């Protein structure tokens, strides 16, 4: 009896001692944090993260080669615990989830369903998939089978529907899909993505400079998911409150409903969700990528600068804005009057962007208070010039130096100072652009009795937003079309009138605008005591000369010369965006340029070179414009409430109101949810073909 017990104990002791010694001799110095991180992980050992098991994953987390959100089972809670333990700070962890690229349009043909193979991959292997299209979903639901988390189901239209709340971003569906139409996307990929010709893009998406996914956010509004709608907009446009008020809606011009009906009031809907956020009193959180340790300086805080700052911050870079003026916002603040864009709204929107962790230095002028060398010495990797177009063209006519003659931007800018500017009883504004409209309408609100806009072409040629022209007409502003200023008359140094010459329209020039020709001997005098010139702006690039000698190339229009595809200037670490590159343009164009330059700068700083965007969509995709639409019932477009004329004069109250929820619901249902090709919504017949 004793022997077996002794033997057993002996063998056990030897094994135990042996193991003990081995553990000591072969001890590997392991970071104690690995064990702790391992304890934080759920211990499923599923391998979904791509590592052999939780232990390897913990190791990778500790040495920094894996991001805190790598564990696909643990979700955000585990991720933030790990991030907290490893001292990654309270980072907004960027969720990565699966999303389909195929939204129905350009659908794969259902022609071949081989009996026996109810699987996308099998169909693909047998027939190389569909014959008509390279990108469409086959629709047999292999991704649904592949998903271990039940986040995918087949929708009634035969397309997979992804549930972002259940998706953990493990990528099984991506590996299962033979057509490669599912991708794991993070916020970062979304920010860096630009429209391509190969994508299914509705006309409005093709036309929007910022490339907002318009049908998607309207769909969210229809479903009552206002936060999701707003976040869809903010993937592309950090200033929805601003754009919802001042954007002239290039998208609505392309709206397919407008073929047989009024276009969808896209901007009212945008304004509705933006105001919904502001009414909630809290900025919706947006995810920010891991810190890259790169620093970017942005000169100028207009829409272009703010947009670039917002997107670069979200890409994980350290951003600092340098602004010459006492407040941020650029033309949004100093060029757009209060009655179109209340400044408290602008402040709230800008604060939301700055709260992402963007530093700001105000009251500093580039070239005078700080230079490129100084920025480089402070460790900035790149500099973005988004200085806008603030210099103004001036008429070289007699009397331009009289008292009572203003330039447009200079006049509008004064509204942000403590004392309002003075406008006389009767005001003449020269020019036909938005600045002229703003100056004219602002003068009315200062108490001017008579305001006249002098423009040398006709109403059709006016570059101002049509809505602005209509509003100016409503406010009884007089228009003197086909009149060119000849000289400003004055008495004892003060303006008394403007002499104008009548014009007639001649042959169209190469831009298609008809060139005005003077009618000799048609002089007449418009009596006035104030003349505001608003005949065009260009970038003020005086920092380019002394003392910095940046040697930036300039174009003959006094704009910064840069590579169109990258917005990189001839000084490699200097980029540009917005009006100072394009000349005066829309706010939404500057916002788009901000994201474009953010992409370039991101690649330049992280990879050293900026990859071109393959097949970048610039013109309308062939087939996306229709002559007629079938089966659409005409329904009238909603209109925003506007305050009455008496309320407009003498005050700077906002003219247009926001639509209410009921109207937003109604309007969102007017969206046709277009793709490139109209997608047949008929049920798909699954025909079994005998392989004979």
């Amino acid at each position, binding site marked *: 009896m004793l022997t077996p017990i002794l033997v057993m104990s002996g063998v*056990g002791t030897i094994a135990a001692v042996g193991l003990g010694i081995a553990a000591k001799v072969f001890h*590997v110095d392991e970071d104690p944090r690995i064990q702790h991180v391992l304890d934080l992980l759920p211990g499923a050992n599923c391998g979904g993260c791509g590592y*052999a098991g939780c232990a390897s994953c913990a190791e990778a987390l500790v040495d920094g080669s894996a991001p805190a959100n790598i564990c696909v089972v643990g979700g955000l809670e585990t991720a933030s615990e790990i991030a907290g333990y490893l001292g990654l700070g309270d980072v907004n962890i960027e969720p990565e989830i699966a999303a389909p690229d195929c939204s129905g349009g350009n659908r794969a043909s259902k022609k071949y369903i081989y009996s026996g*193979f109810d699987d996308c991959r099998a169909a693909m292997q047998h027939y190389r998939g569909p014959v008509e299209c390279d990108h469409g979903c086959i629709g047999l639901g292999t991704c649904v089978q592949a998903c271990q988390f039940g986040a995918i189901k087949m929708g009634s239209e035969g397309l997979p529907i992804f549930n972002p709340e259940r998706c953990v971003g493990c990528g099984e569906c991506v590996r299962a899909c033979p057509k490669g139409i599912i991708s794991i996307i993070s916020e970062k990929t979304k920010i860096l993505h630009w429209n391509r010709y190969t994508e299914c893009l509705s006309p409005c998406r093709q036309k929007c400079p910022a490339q907002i996914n318009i049908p998607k956010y309207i769909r969210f509004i229809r479903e009552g998911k206002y936060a999701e709608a707003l976040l869809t907009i903010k993937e592309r446009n950090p200033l929805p409150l601003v754009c919802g008020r001042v954007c002239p809606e290039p998208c609505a011009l392309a709206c397919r409903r407008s073929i047989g009906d009024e276009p969808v009031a896209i901007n009212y809907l945008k304004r509705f969700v933006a105001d919904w956020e502001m009414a909630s009193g809290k900025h919706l959180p947006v995810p920010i990528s891991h810190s890259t340790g790169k620093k970017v300086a942005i000169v100028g805080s207009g829409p272009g600068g703010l947009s670039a700052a917002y997107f670069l911050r979200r890409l994980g870079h350290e951003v600092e804005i340098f602004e010459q003026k006492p407040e941020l916002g650029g033309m949004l603040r100093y060029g757009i009057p209060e009655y179109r864009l209340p400044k408290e709204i602008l402040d709230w929107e800008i604060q939301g962007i700055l709260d992402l962790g963007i530093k700001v230095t105000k009251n500093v002028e580039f070239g005078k208070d700080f230079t490129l060398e100084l920025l480089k010495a402070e460790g900035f990797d790149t500099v973005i010039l988004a200085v806008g177009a603030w210099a103004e063209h001036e008429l070289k006519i007699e009397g331009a130096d009289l008292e009572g003659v203003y330039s447009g931007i200079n006049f509008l800018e004064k509204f942000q100072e403590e004392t309002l500017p003075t406008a006389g009883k009767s005001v003449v504004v020269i020019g036909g652009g938005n600045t002229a409209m703003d100056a004219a309408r602002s003068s009315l609100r200062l108490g001017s009795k008579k305001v006249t806009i002098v423009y040398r072409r006709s109403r059709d040629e006016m570059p101002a937003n049509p809505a602005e022209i209509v509003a100016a007409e409503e406010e009884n502003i007089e228009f003197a079309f086909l009149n060119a200023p000849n000289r400003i008359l004055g008495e004892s140094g003060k303006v008394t009138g403007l002499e104008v010459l009548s014009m007639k329209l001649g042959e169209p020039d190469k831009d298609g605008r008809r060139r005005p020709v003077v009618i000799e001997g048609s002089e007449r005098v418009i009596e006035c005591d104030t003349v505001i010139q608003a005949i065009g702006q260009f970038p003020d690039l005086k920092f380019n000369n002394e003392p910095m000698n940046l040697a930036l190339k300039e174009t003959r229009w006094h704009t910064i010369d840069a590579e169109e595809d990258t917005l990189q200037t001839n000084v490699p670490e200097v980029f540009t965006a917005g009006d100072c590159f394009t000349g005066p343009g829309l706010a939404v164009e500057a916002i788009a340029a901000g994201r474009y330059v953010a992409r370039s700068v991101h690649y330049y700083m992280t990879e050293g070179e900026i990859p071109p965007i393959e097949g970048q969509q610039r013109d309308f995709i062939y087939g996306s414009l229709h002559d007629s639409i079938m089966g659409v019932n005409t329904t009238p477009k909603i209109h925003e409430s506007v305050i009455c004329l008496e309320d407009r004069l003498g005050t700077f109250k906002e003219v247009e109101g926001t639509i209410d929820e009921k109207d937003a619901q109604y309007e969102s249902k007017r969206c046709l949810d277009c793709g490139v090709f109209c997608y047949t919504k008929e049920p798909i017949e699954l025909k079994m073909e005998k392989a004979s």
Partner: protein
Amino acid sequence: MDLVLLAISAIFVNNILLAQYLGNCPFCGVSKKLSTSLGMGAAVIFVATLASIFTWLVYYYLLEPLGLKYMQTLVFILIIASLVQFVEIFLKKFSKPLYNALGIYLPLITTNCAVMGIALLNIKHEFGFWEMVVFSISSAAGFTLAIILFASIRERLFISHVPSFMKGTAIALVTAGIMSLSFMGFSGMVN
């Protein structure tokens, strides 16, 4: 020549999985993907060979002289478990890539009946040292062969039109049965 015959017999005729039905747990558990089944197979070959050598030595130089043959199962479990632990510690120190590659499979083998089975069969067949080594390697190779074949079939099965009540483990077990039947075709090749 006998050793070659022994190897063929262990791999095909008396395949540890399909003829002797040992190690069915990992056979069903880790055979969904070809790559993981390869990892499992390699780990089994490595551990089974080492374990057989140790258990053989312990049996003939400790248990038999002391007349404690009946204790073999108990002692073998202890030895295999300690051995796997030792291998794990050793690999972690000297071959981190291999350790990471084997990952979870190494501890899994601790409780793998194929390894225990091979160790016990060595004793049952009264093999000499070299016979024992060849038999162990071959048996484990047979396990690897079977699990690789099975994983390949299961990968194809996954994309096939299987009635939903048969999906997953059900069809896998049917498949394993048919594979077992086909391996019976080898019987009689070698006595």
